[in-house]
Each structure stands twice: as C-alpha cells, then as structure tokens.
C-alpha cells in the first residue's frame, strides 16, 4: 500500500462537509428527551425469529397442493356410470389389502441448498434492533413409491427462505 500513501494523504486533506447546527440541536433534543425518561419502544430482549414473509411456507403449500392433486389424479378413478356394459376390469373383484391411498408411501425427501447469501444488517419495521438477513435458496424433492408395482412419484420445487438472525450488541 506504500504506492498509495501520497494519495491517501491527499484524500485525508479533503474535509467532509460538517453537519448543520440544526442537526446537532435535533440530536441534542433527542438526547434530552431520552434522558427525561421516555425512551420509547425499548424491548426487553431480542428473540430469534423467522422473517414473517418467508417464501418457504407458500412454496411448500403450493408443492403440497400440486402433489395432492397429482396423487388424486393418478390414484382415484371415477366410478363406472350405471347402465353401461361392464368391462373386465369392473368385473374383477378388488384385491384385498391396504386402502388405495396407502399404495404410494413416502420414500424420501432431499433438500439441496444451492445458494446462501448474507444480505447484511436489516431493521425490521418498527424495530430498533438490527438483524442479519440471510437468504437461503434450495431445491426440495419429495418422493413416493408404490411397493407393489415399483412405481414412483416425485415432486421437486425450489424454495427461498429468509432467516433473520439477531445481532448481539457489543
């Protein structure tokens, strides 16, 4: 950094414009107000909390709804309307065993975090304390398998979750 010593000296010669006297007075007034015993909105202690607007819940909800619809479409067959010629399938007695919904059983869940980004400090609305906002992006895959037929079903979806981590005071 020796190459830059002269430049740094030149930079330090630049003096930032000082704040206006009004700002000093406003800070002074704020200090006096607080000294008067009215520090508004002081909270006892920060607790770790999740961001209220995380996308995970909506992503999971959508994925679950899609998976349920797909399962219903695959597994539930409409009844034969009365009066039509019976087919071989309808004449075949239903096999005894577990219910139709139990044919597909959960076989696995994979969760791959492919990106985590620290977005820096963040002040939640109406809060005085900073929190570090960390965004985690991942892909989750739910798998079901039919042990009798070997058929498998998987649903994969991206999810985006934001964590708010309290920053301890120093």
């Amino acid at each position, binding site marked *: *950094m020796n*190459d*830059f010593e002269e*430049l*740094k000296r*030149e*930079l*330090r*010669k*630049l*003096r*930032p*414009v*000082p*704040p*206006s006297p*009004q*700002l*000093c007075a*406003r*800070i*002074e007034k*704020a*200090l006096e107000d*607080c*000294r008067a015993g009215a*520090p*508004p*909105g*002081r909270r006892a202690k920060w607790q770790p909390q999740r961001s209220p607007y995380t996308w995970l819940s909506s992503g999971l909800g959508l994925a679950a709804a899609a998976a349920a619809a797909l399962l219903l479409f695959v597994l539930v067959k409409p009844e034969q309307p009365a009066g039509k010629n019976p087919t071989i399938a309808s004449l075949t007695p239903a096999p005894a065993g577990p219910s139709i919904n139990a044919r597909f059983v959960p076989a696995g869940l994979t969760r791959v975090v492919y990106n985590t980004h*620290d*977005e*820096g*400090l*963040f*002040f939640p609305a109406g809060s*005085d*304390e*900073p929190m*570090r906002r960390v965004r985690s992006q991942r892909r989750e895959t739910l798998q079901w398998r039919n042990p009798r037929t070997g058929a498998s079903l998987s649903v994969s979806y991206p999810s985006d979750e934001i964590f708010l981590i309290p*920053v*301890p*005071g*120093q």
Partner: protein
Amino acid sequence: MESVATDEEWRVCFSQLAPGLLLFARQWIRSPGDAEDVVQEAFVRFWRRNYSVDNRALLYATVRSIAIDFLRRDNRRARRESTAVSEMEQFVEPQFAVEDESEQALAVALGRLPNEQREVLVMKIWSELTFAEIASVLGISQNTAASRYRYALVALKKNFVPHPQ
C-alpha cells in the same frame, strides 16, 4: 450492550463521528437534508439501544440500513436518487469542503468510483474504521473489504490527476 453510555459520552461521540456519518449517509442520499435526517434517526436509534459507543461498526450499519430503507420507502424518491447517482458524473454534490482545484478534482474522481468501492473508502479514510468493522457493516469478508479498498485506490490513482499548485 456492555456499557451504558452517558449523555456526555454521546455528545463527544457524535461530535467526532457526525461528519463521517453524514458523508457515509450521502453515499446513498444525495440531499444533505435527507442525509441529516438519516443520521439523526440512526444516532437516536443507536442511543436508545444503549449500545457501546465503541461499536462504530453497528452505528455505521445502522446509518446504512436506514439510508437504504429511506430509498426503498418512496419509489419516486428512489428513482430521483438513482437518477442523481447516474448523473453524478456530470454533477458532483458538495460532500467536501474543497479549497482548491486539486481537491475538487479528487472529489470528482471519488464520486466516479463504484458505490461498493466508494463506501469502503469513505469508511476507511474519513472514519478510520478497520477492515473488520467495515466487513461487519457491509456483511462481507475482511478480504473483500480490503480488496474493494485497494481497487478504489487504484482507480483513484489512475483517474486523479492533481493540479499543479
């Protein structure tokens, strides 16, 4: 939150840090009045939490957070500020009390730096924050902070041509 600062400590702290805080805020907020509002809100918020006066990184992070929130709060204002930033190459806000053409040229060169380099340089040169503190403010690694600082100096050295006295 280890120590509860007295009012007198805060006055001293503010008098020492205010010019640097205001300069830092003006990296986002071009209007001096709005930047002062940001600094005031950050300072009062910092005081109310009784943070240690030594925790400069958190104070600067507070200013940065409020400044960015300020821009986000009003899209119209944000567009105006963004336009102001994009037009900065033609017009430089008087962030420094320049005394001669050489200082003016240096201030112009500083204004042409990318934001991410300029904010590191401002914290390092005029507030004398350590790279660890700067990294904490920006949520980046110390190496990244040091790199941005060096890139800023390289760019300044390349672009700044001092006027003969």
